[in-house]
């Protein structure tokens, strides 16, 4: 089994409390499925939207990361899957897809080759 990182980008907020609750319940169901199938390695963490970017030899600090809201990483999860294709297939059930967001799937490099 290989590890993969899911990066959640974008996604609309719920328009009403009820809608937010529905979106969240879909997430909980999806996470539960991933756990039940043994594919969830680490549910990960949500990220704040603010941040700083440190750059160059002078370690200049600027406000960042300046991505547009639709590209901003809002959180991550680590899953295990047979292959990149399998991991991508699993990501197809992510509720962020219902609200205009996307999942970036990245294989984690292995230590032992």
């Amino acid at each position, binding site marked *: 089994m290989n590890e993969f990182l899911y990066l959640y980008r974008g996604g609309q907020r719920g328009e009403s*409390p*009820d809608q*937010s*609750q529905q979106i*969240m319940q879909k*997430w*909980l169901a999806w996470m539960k499925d991933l756990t039940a199938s043994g594919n969830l390695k680490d*549910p990960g*963490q949500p990220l704040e939207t603010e941040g700083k970017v440190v750059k160059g030899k002078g370690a200049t600090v600027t406000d960042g990361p300046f991505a547009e809201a639709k590209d901003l990483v809002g*959180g991550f999860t680590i899953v295990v899957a047979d292959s990149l294709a399998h991991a991508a297939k699993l990501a197809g059930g992510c509720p962020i897809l219902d609200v205009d967001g996307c999942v970036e799937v990245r294989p984690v490099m292995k230590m032992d080759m």
Partner: protein
Amino acid sequence: MELSDHLFRREAGRMVAALTRAFGLHNLALAEDVVQDAFCRALEVWKLRGIPENPSAWLMKTAKNRAVGVLRRERTALTFAPDLGRLLQTEWTLANAVEEMFDPIGIKDDQLRMMFSCCHPRLSAPAQVMLVLQLVGGFGAREVASAFVSSPAAVEKRLSRSKKTLAESGVLFDIADAADFALRLPVVQRALYLIFSEGYHGASAHAVIRTDLCCESIRLTRQLAEHPLGAVPSTLALCALMYLDAARLPARLDASGDLSSLFDQDRSRWDREMIDEGRAWLERSASGTELSRYHVEAAIAAVHTDAPRFEETDWAAIVSLYDTLMEIAPSPVVALSRAIAVAQLRGPQSGLEAIDAVNDRDRLAEYPFYYAARGELELRRKNNAIARDYFQTALALARNPVEQRFLKKRVDACA
């Protein structure tokens, strides 16, 4: 850990009410923003980390933190409620003030205060209802639109106009003033009644949203009945009416999801617990001398729920109650309901005569069940062709697919 249904919606109402008291009515939009932010945070964190031990407390705490942040940042730029303004002068009293505004006992009063504020006399009845649903009930514009068969954009526009009026009115309603309370109470009762009616008789095709409206109006009416000044007989009667009507909701749609008239509802599907609850409220409402329209309507509902079979309904009692209702709160819809009861008691000919005698009948011109009632009575008189025409007219006015299917069946019954 599972979330209870509509937890977010309930909490939204509580938090908006608490924050509006703190920030002042003129900062209503700010209070709504803080609440919206709290839900976004909850969504982001909970979806990955799971639901916390005490979700309500988590939400409240998050809103509290956002509120402190806003107050720190904006206290010089914005003017706040007079009480708060004084407390914001130092960092220490600021934190205390925020703590105090989320006190659970206070929040209950806050919601009632918000309910009364939403029923501002400068707003129309539909505008008041929409505001109560959104600000006290936590419904979104899309949900309100679905309830009132309107477009979300139109509802959004109307809501924002009403909120502007509300914000301009300056101060929240003072629920401690007994005289003002008594004056505003009928308006609040009417708004709650309208929310219920929209759920019970309304045009929305979404059964879910309609049940939601019934449950929400019952919840809010109960809150009103828990307040010493709100617990007058008319409020208790309103509560009784809602329970007794809502008890019959489960039987209104048959197994195939089609509308089922009172004539052939499966009465075993009526909710016995709700009927008992309604009866208890009705008994409590009988103290005092006040006889409100809600008393009479609850009594009518009670007669229906008393009958184990449709044929055993006490129509004489129902007609007499409708006569009383026509004296207290006359309207073409009440007169039409009375005419239908008259038909049950004295036959279709008398029923049709009673319909012909309805004042302001033109106000029913768009109401499909006006024509359906005429069709039903003509059908009983074996005037099938005339009945069919009436049902066709009703069908053309049907407001959703459920009504369409029901009326189509009635058209076919005339063959």
